[in-house]
């Protein structure tokens, strides 16, 4: 026994970087909505960056810790507290057995990630621990967490911690450093999401192309891990196109016949039949994941070369972070 769920929160599920390689069988990818926050949460506790963590949404859970452990909380700020005392995010935290981690109001973003050193003991299904909610597979019993669920932690192969045990006098202890997360997750009230042209961009009228690039869109309440439905100016096709079903990807922006765009996200179907006006660049997918229903966003078109260099830049920053963290682990 390692972690007991007292209150599950709105939607708390086990996610890793997704179930890749099975899309041709119709198996959706799933995985963390905000992959950078997941990877950083893992790096901070000495895990490999693709280990499974808890993804929490808007209203976080209340969890009882039943074993001493090293954790990290990243992503959106859902006001985490340990035994009533606010606990900082983006740094390793040593938590003593018997403590309660409770999340409160959502101060920024939408999704937070809770990692534990060694990872959660969750079996892999099709090479991934991610929960596929609709398919009822993967993760913890194929579903979101419920009260009284108990999740064990994996034994760590070698015990290491950036904190020495003697520092721990209270219920928890903090590392004296943290990640400058703003370069990975520059949250704002009305974020600008960078996109490249979608496969059917040219099917749209000139005015719709312009509106897509300039006008704000509101994220509707019918938005979830499958996709974000947007409302704004109706995007119109030059003429009716019969589109055959084809593969879609994370961040594809489809436009339904009523003119409203949908951004396809982690739990998207593998294929779709609506025209795609744009594609969110990989480096900005975490920004979308942190947008709440009701918020407004704008799109900014960039070239494919820009999308690639932004992606590679983020990967370089993650690599630097990984080296810095492992140095901190050694020099505790």
């Amino acid at each position, binding site marked *: 026994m390692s972690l007991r769920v007292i209150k599950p929160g709105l939607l708390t599920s086990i996610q890793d970087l997704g179930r890749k390689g099975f899309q041709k069988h119709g198996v959706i990818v799933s995985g963390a909505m905000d992959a950078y926050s997941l990877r950083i949460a893992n790096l901070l506790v000495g895990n490999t960056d693709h280990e499974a963590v808890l993804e929490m949404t808007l209203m976080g859970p209340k969890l009882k810790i039943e074993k001493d452990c090293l954790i990290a909380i990243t992503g959106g700020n859902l006001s985490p507290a340990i035994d009533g005392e606010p606990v900082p995010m983006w740094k390793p935290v040593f938590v003593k057995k018997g403590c309660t981690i409770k999340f409160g109001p959502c101060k920024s973003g939408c999704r937070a990630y809770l990692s534990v050193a060694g990872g959660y003991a969750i079996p892999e299904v099709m090479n991934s621990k991610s929960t596929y909610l609709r*398919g009822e597979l993967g993760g913890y019993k194929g579903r979101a967490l419920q009260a009284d669920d108990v999740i064990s932690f994996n034994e760590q192969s070698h015990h290491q911690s950036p904190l020495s045990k003697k520092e721990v006098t209270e219920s928890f202890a903090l590392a004296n450093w943290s990640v400058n997360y703003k370069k990975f997750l520059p949250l704002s009230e009305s974020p600008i999401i960078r996109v490249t042209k979608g496969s059917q961009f040219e099917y749209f009228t000139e005015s719709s192309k312009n509106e897509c690039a300039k006008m704000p869109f509101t994220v509707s309440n019918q938005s979830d891990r499958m996709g974000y439905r947007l409302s704004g100016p109706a995007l119109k096709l030059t003429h009716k196109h019969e589109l055959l079903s084809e593969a879609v990807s994370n961040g594809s922006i489809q436009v339904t016949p009523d003119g409203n765009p949908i951004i396809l996200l982690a739990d998207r179907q593998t294929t779709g039949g609506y025209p795609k006006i744009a594609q969110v660049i990989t480096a900005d997918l975490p920004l979308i994941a942190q947008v709440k229903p009701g918020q407004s966003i704008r799109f900014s078109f960039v070239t494919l070369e820009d999308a690639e260099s932004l992606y590679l830049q983020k990967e370089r920053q993650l690599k630097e972070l990984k080296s810095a963290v492992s140095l901190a682990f050694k020099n505790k």
Partner: protein
Amino acid sequence: MGDSAIMITFGNEIKYDTHKKIKAFMDSLENDPFVGLIECVPAFINLTIFYDPLVVYNLYKKRNKTESMSPYKVVSSIIKKRLQQIDSNQELIHRTVSIPVCYGGEFGPDLEYVARHNNLTTDEVIYIHSNGEYLAYMIGFAPGFPFLGGLSEKIATPRRPSPRTAIPAGSVGIAGAQTGVYPISTPGGWQLIGATPMKLFLPNDNPPSLLQAGDIVTFSPISQDEYNETVLKGEGQ
């Protein structure tokens, strides 16, 4: 398709010849994957190739000692070269999968509607449906769900005006000129004519889908007793 995938189009309508080219190219990539390839997803007229831009970048940087290059351009040129090596005259070898179906009754609540719509008896609908040969062009929409081509126009029927909120797993349906089987319970607007006890989605197997793109599918009528027996024996597993 953005910074991590490339879609290659092989035609502009549903045609066997297009399918053949897509399947041949996908097989060649899977048998001899380039470094950075994640997966291929075939569809009616195109193939989408998902790759890891970082893996492509790192390999190319090491080989060519240059920092300035686009993973997309590297992958595109690999694909162009590979496309030239494909022999699309080669005949495809198709696997035939026979799916037992219990038509009508509680399993096929729309069988009578499909018959009425086409001025046929329900037996005629069953006869036509179970004597067809269907090609699985692609798997998508839901895990293990086949997009089948080859439905006789004599039994083509438009979707229901309002979709059902939950269609049971195993349901066999018709939507326009398409037929298919629901592997998991999902909402849907297809006309349901029967159900199979066979499992199409097998999450603990590899591959996890009974059907693959390129399979020929046939349907054979079974009685309700045979259906129940198969379910009881767990033969559909």
